[in-house]
């Protein structure tokens, strides 16, 4: 998945969680990049017609951006589901995040031929747990969630 797709996916999830435009700070934080890098990419997404940025409010995806983000999220769901169900990886979320930049959509589509994905994908994706809601979250992740809540 290329960098632009990782950004639109992150913006989409932030918008969904907040039901509001995504702030540059939250976006930079989620992607673990500097605010300057996030701003630069937001500019590129704007010039490609994928997002709109309003000062002091944040960034909102255009209709085209939403389509792109949902495709990227679907690819991410395939990677998570493949790791969890086929390779039995407990830490499927952290590994999916590591592998995401190296796995192309084309590759994910082939992996999709051997996994049983739900018809509601990618709406099944829960941004809070960063996982498909149909995947079981192992104890380690639940503990991490509790620590975050503290």
């Amino acid at each position: 998945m290329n960098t632009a797709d990782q950004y639109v996916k992150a913006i989409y999830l932030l918008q969904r969680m907040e039901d509001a435009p995504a702030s540059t700070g939250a976006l930079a934080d989620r992607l673990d990049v500097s605010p300057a890098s996030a701003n630069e990419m937001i500019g590129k997404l704007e010039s490609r017609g994928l997002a709109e940025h309003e000062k002091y409010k944040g960034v909102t995806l255009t209709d085209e951006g939403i389509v792109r983000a949902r495709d990227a999220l679907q690819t991410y769901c395939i990677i998570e589901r493949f790791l969890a169900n086929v390779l039995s990886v407990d830490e499927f979320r952290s590994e999916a995040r590591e592998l995401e930049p190296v796995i192309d959509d084309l590759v994910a589509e082939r992996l999709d031929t051997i996994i049983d994905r739900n018809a509601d994908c990618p709406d099944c994706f829960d941004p809070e747990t960063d996982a498909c809601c149909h995947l079981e979250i192992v104890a380690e992740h639940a503990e991490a969630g509790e620590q975050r809540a503290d």
Partner: protein
Amino acid sequence: MPKPGGTTVSVGHQVDSDHQLARLLQIGVVLEEVVEARSYHHYQSIDGEPQLDPEIESLLEHVVEESADHRERLEDLIDQLNADSVPFEQIEALVEAQYGATEPDDFDDILYDQLCNEETAYKFYDDLVGALRASEASFSIHRDRLIDVLVGIREEEAQGVKEVTTLMNTRQ
């Protein structure tokens, strides 16, 4: 500032640990196993056809052999990383379980499926080689040998794309 959803992703295209490399090689093995199992399925399905197409039959036979060979070369690398491969029987069963939903209808569909297989595999190895070249990490496997093996497989996938495309063009 708390991280929304408590998660971050790393934007980049690097491979920087034995663990991540082993996982990617496992994915390569699975892709080869999917190709092998689907090609075998196609091969079996045309076996009883009254108008058997020898060119497609020969292509599928070659693809099954080549994918098995690629799988062995990847497994050799995975062994050196002290990781486990993914049993072919497991993937074959998954292909079998999902095959009905994606089964090609005719010879043209079989060729198209093969083209997708070869293109996908090429893209996977190309991205992996690119990510390894962009990384300065050291692995338990000698970097040059690792890249040589992956480039070798990638070139065979490129050749496969050419062969399927040629066959598709001659049938039009």
